[in-house]
């Protein structure tokens, strides 16, 4: 019996000829990731494990300070310090403090720490992002991360796979974010729980690396364990520019068994919006604009849409214009490298001139930590990945999720706006 892409990677890391859904395996990990929040708890757990004084391999641990950076308060500074001291003590090779990294999921691929066929676990649910590169990557809690720090292996239940086959060419101002919001809407927020999502079809073959990142990143929004693309020439070129490490490109077998196969034609797809208060409450923009929804804040950034391609789209729409009065627009480039690239291209100046507040990279605004939290009764449109009650601050706020283009168009009008009606050239 053939194996899916996820099964192939899991079998190799478990040292087995084959695996099947439901099987429990012990798999070797190629990289273990944590941020200052998940690391702080994991370090505490690790200290309590008898016989565990060292991480299994200091070259296979990545620690990124990104959630409450720059430190929100003394308590947050304490967590970052705890992680920094642990990194020094354990000689962790990949430690990124504020100013040197950015959002973990933006940083790791940029730094060549993610390659096809690898198995990566992280103390953050959006670790599934690395599926964009043909890796098996999944998020876990801190106790599991502590175990992986020490053992270099994790126990996993092999997930059944759902095959999503996309066809059609996206229309103007329709992006990977719209395709993925539509997908989450179709699957539902628990539609892929305990499952792997495998992305296929001509549409995703044509997508940029950034577009695939956006789609893999939101696999967790359908409850999935991981979301994965096949690596192609684009992936291999991206990875080889950043690392000399050898890697194995796996492919699903032709006779692989999928629990479900879903075909999605996106040729008629409009820009999509996830309305409050779940990421699967997805509607076409033309339905949402009918309600003429005024917004108080627009947020551009996150591990979903904080990449240079995203900022280019936003800058193109805002270039030479001013954002609407009585509106805040907050932009967080996803990483220090994205920030510098955006500076080199004049994007940061374009955005600032339009009235946007440009922040340093970090997760703060997306998860209601700091640097852009919403107040009672406020409404935001955001390029992020979750819109649960209280996600970005007040439980009395409303969050709409959309693409960078839809958010930029809304920034010009102060209302949720269809990017197709704004005068701009699509990027």
């Amino acid at each position, binding site marked *: 019996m053939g194996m899916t892409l996820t099964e192939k990677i899991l079998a190799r890391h478990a040292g087995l000829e084959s695996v099947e859904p439901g099987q*429990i395996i012990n798999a070797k990990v190629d990289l273990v990731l944590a941020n200052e*929040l*998940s690391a*702080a*708890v994991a370090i*505490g*757990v690790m200290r*309590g*494990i*008898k*016989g*565990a004084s060292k991480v299994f391999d200091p070259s296979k641990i990545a620690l990124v300070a990104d*959630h*409450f950076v720059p430190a*929100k*308060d003394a*308590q*947050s500074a304490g*967590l970052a310090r705890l992680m920094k001291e642990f990194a020094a003590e354990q000689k962790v090779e990949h430690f990124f403090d504020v100013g040197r990294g950015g959002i973990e999921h933006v940083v790791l691929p940029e730094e060549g720490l993610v390659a096809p066929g690898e198995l990566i676990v992280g*103390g*953050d*649910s959006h*670790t599934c992002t690395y599926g964009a590169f043909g890796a098996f990557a999944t*998020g*876990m*809690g*801190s*106790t*599991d991360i*502590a*175990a992986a720090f*020490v*053992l270099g*292996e994790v*126990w996993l*239940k092999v997930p059944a796979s759902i095959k999503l086959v996309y066809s059609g060419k996206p229309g103007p101002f329709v992006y990977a974010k719209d395709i993925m919001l539509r997908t989450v809407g179709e699957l539902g*927020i*628990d539609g892929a*729980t*305990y499952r792997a999502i495998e992305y296929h079809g001509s549409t995703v073959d044509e997508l940029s690396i950034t577009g695939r990142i956006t789609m893999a990143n939101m696999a967790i929004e359908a*409850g999935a*364990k991981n979301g994965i693309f096949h690596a192609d020439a684009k992936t291999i070129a991206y990875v080889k520019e950043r690392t000399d490490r050898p890697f194995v490109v796996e492919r699903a077998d032709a006779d692989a068994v999928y629990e479900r196969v879903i075909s999605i034609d996106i040729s008629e797809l409009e820009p999509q919006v996830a309305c409050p208060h*779940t990421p699967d409450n997805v509607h076409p923009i033309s339905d949402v604009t009918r309600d003429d929804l005024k917004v108080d804040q627009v947020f551009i950034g996150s591990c979903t849409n904080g990449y240079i391609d995203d900022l280019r789209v936003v800058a193109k729409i805002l270039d030479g214009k001013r954002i609407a009065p009585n509106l805040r627009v907050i932009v967080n480039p996803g990483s220090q490298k994205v920030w510098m690239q955006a500076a080199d291209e004049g994007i940061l100046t374009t955005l600032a001139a339009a009235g946007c507040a440009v922040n340093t990279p970090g997760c703060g605004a997306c*998860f*209601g*930590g*700091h640097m852009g*939290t919403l107040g009672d009764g406020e409404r935001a449109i955001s390029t992020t990945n*979750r819109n*649960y*009650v*209280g*996600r970005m*601050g007040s*439980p009395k706020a409303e969050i709409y999720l959309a693409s960078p283009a839809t958010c930029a168009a809304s920034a010009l009008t102060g209302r949720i706006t269809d990017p197709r009606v704004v005068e701009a050239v699509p990027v």
Partner: protein
Amino acid sequence: MEATLRGHAHKYGKNVDTDVIIPGKYCNIIDRAELGKHALEGLDPEYTARMKAGDIIVAGTNFGCGSSREVAPIAIKASGTSAVIAKSFARIFYRNALNIGLPIFESAEAVDGIESGDEIELEPAGGIVRNLTKGTTYRAAEFPPFMQSLIDAGGLVPYVERRLAETQ
């Protein structure tokens, strides 16, 4: 094996996500007791004031969806809540709950048969849910054998200690 748990039910709907279980702004808290004061704050700000030690959260499908924050089950446990009964659990929360020792029971029938305020008795070992108010009994889904062996071993930490001893 854990002893019998007893408390009153506090019932909620489906998709109780980690952002309402412990809002992001509290995720920089390490102190368990402090985390416990904010359990379910985004969903029911009165929960911790109203509940008594031993009480039980009852919810619909996909409990704990969203983030991987382990402080979510930690906050529930630290609040004095003795267990969560749900129709189903999100994947990461399920693992985290077992890892930190928060008893969880998966049973759609039990959830449908419990109202807020009902007195509930739970036997973690057999997955038994008794609604003492209504006089009904349910059996929660069994844990897969591997997970049961982890639970029997006392959790993931003793398991890791054993693996370390084997490999060194």
